[in-house]
């Protein structure tokens, strides 16, 4: 029942821990617990959350989390920092860093197409999460970066963010747009012309004009972006980076977790640990069937109610074991840790420490 030592080894030795899983399974809290444990073991740890985790800020005793890490003071030998990823400001910083001069940076930052990309392009958040953890790990000298990922299937897109970015930059439409004038369009083949005409028909020519202005302002910067993306990619593929799968024991979240596990396998990465959150508590060792029979036999009495209640929780527990069996086998030999569905809500550092007690029982 107790967590194998593998999880402690990860917190002691890993440079980056990426927590993946679907929404509502306690990913953010888990990430905070792992970072806190790192600090307790003497590491300089930072937890990066993707959601506006106001609750986590409260739990950690800081007013609000921002795009730069806040120091959480406490009686531990290491350091604990926390921050919330702001996709747009991370992207803005990246543009400023790679621009040749202020003028180029300003032309990009003011462009409407850019504002659309930086704020709303699906995948940007994932890409910027990768970028931020690279920055924290390589430039800010954090020796343990724990990152929480967005609760969507796109969460793992940042594994191949550089490939996606390169595809985007190499796209035919992009190359057409990159040509100095639209006159160039006359020279390209008819299929490509039809293609651009269609796009223009669907979204309106204004949008294409914005895109054109963006791409011409971006000229000369894409190499910098590509190099950076390649380094982020290398860090994610490094053996010091570990992926931790977080799930609750329900068939739908287990299915999502299984999907994440297979995505990682496709990218030749593996699940370093599986954390099962919100496990209903186990009361004794009996089976729900017997309890149900007794509940009926004593129906109407207090004993009947007590057995009916026990049967409810035991049947949930039996269903949970069934749902988890395949996933646990799939990620083997990765350690599997269980955190019970607590009778109280997580409120403060003590509650985080309580969860840590389940993850690191030694």
């Amino acid at each position, binding site marked *: 029942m107790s967590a194998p030592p593998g999880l402690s080894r990860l917190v002691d030795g890993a440079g980056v821990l990426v927590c993946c899983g679907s929404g509502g399974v306690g990913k953010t809290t888990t990430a905070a617990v792992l970072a806190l444990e790192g600090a307790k073991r003497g590491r300089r740890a930072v937890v990066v959350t993707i959601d506006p985790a106001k609750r986590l800020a409260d739990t950690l005793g800081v007013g609000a989390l921002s795009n730069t890490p806040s120091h959480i003071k406490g009686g531990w030998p290491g350091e604990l920092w926390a921050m919330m990823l702001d996709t747009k400001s991370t992207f803005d910083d990246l543009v400023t860093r790679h621009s040749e001069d202020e003028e180029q940076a300003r032309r990009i930052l003011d462009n409407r197409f850019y504002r659309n990309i930086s704020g709303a392009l699906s995948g940007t958040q994932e890409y910027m999460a990768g970028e931020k953890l690279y920055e924290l790990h390589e430039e800010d000298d954090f020796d343990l970066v724990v990152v929480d990922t967005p*609760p969507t*299937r796109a969460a793992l897109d940042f594994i191949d963010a550089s490939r996606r970015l390169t595809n985007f930059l190499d796209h035919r439409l992009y190359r057409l747009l990159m040509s100095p004038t639209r006159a160039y369009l006359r020279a390209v083949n008819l299929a490509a012309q039809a293609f651009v005409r269609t796009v223009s028909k669907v979204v309106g020519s204004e949008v294409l004009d914005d895109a054109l202005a963006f791409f011409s302002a971006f000229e000369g910067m894409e190499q910098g972006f590509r190099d950076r993306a390649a380094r982020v990619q290398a860090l994610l593929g490094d053996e010091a980076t570990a992926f931790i799968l977080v799930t609750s024991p329900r068939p739908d979240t287990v299915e999502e977790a299984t999907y994440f596990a297979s995505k990682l396998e496709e990218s030749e990465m593996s699940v370093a640990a599986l954390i099962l959150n919100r496990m209903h508590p186990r009361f004794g060792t009996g089976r729900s069937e017997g309890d149900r029979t007794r509940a009926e036999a004593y129906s109407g009495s207090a004993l009947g109610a*007590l057995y009916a209640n026990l049967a409810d929780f035991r049947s*949930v527990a039996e269903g949970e074991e069934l749902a988890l069996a395949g996933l646990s086998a799939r990620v083997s030999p990765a350690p599997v840790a269980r955190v019970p569905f607590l009778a109280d*809500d997580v409120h403060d550092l003590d509650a985080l420490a309580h969860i840590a007690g389940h993850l690191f029982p030694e």
Partner: protein
Amino acid sequence: MDAGQFLHASRVVIVAGKGGVGKTAVSAALARMAAKEGLTTLVVQVEASSGLARLFGRPPLSYVESSLAPAAGTVAEVRGRTITPDGALLEYLEDHGLRRISRKLVSTGAMDVVSTAAPGIKDILILGKVKSLERSGSADLIVLDAPAAGHAITFLTSVRGLLDAVRVGPINAQARDVLDLLTDPARCSVMLVTLPEETPVNELVETAFMLEDRVGVSLGPVVVNSLYPPLAGLDADPEAAAAEAGVSLRPGEAEALAGAADFRRRRRSLQEAQLARLDDLLPVPQLHLPHLFSADLGPSHVDALAAALRLEVASLPVPPGARPAPAAAPQGR
């Protein structure tokens, strides 16, 4: 409020909430409840996931409608389908005489570039398709199982953003039509779902205010899912209860019974505190659905939730000025 009146209030109901709160189960229950009132109901999923189909014991849904629960006697059919952005775009282009290059647009990944140029375009394509289904009148009620978490807000607010970015052309027209649908309470409402826990309650309140302010969409009652049903008799001491029943407990049994009873009582009182908090923060009617003590939900659970939802709706006050339910389900307009 009468169930029929509740269900006829708007033809499209968007079910939204944070991940893990049971949005899909609530969508299924609402659809089944409507079907039992005689409304042919279509459930739309926007993400590829087998959750909804599994609830009805069916294989995963596709872009083509399929039956989730057949009509029987006075019970109407529940149908289901997905609406994916790529599928909706293909259909849109084909309908506009652009079949020849439509597949290429999707297969070359140009869709990525286009949707970067005009973010929100994917959401518009999905909502545009929902709008045309609503117009076609092929179903009496359309239940849209919205994307999870904060994305639900982006999903619904992107319409206004897109109107700003694309000022002319078919996408602009499409966005206007979608906004008309979203802001007309007689055509569309949003049903928010939460769990009786602190963080999901906070997020629900935040989402509710943002949707009203930024989209102008009509909010229906909120659904609080997964409440432990009250169970009398849990305060009794197991040994005393056993003695009273004239039996003796096996070793360890008293601890298991007491532990489970204590857990339920404590969670239940936390849940009640959250219900009160939600009521303070967001003064709209609440519909309470029971926690089902099963990890794997199927058709019988959907029916149980539908029945519970019906009872909850029946106890809602009739809003002033509400229209009476039509005698029969309206036919296509």
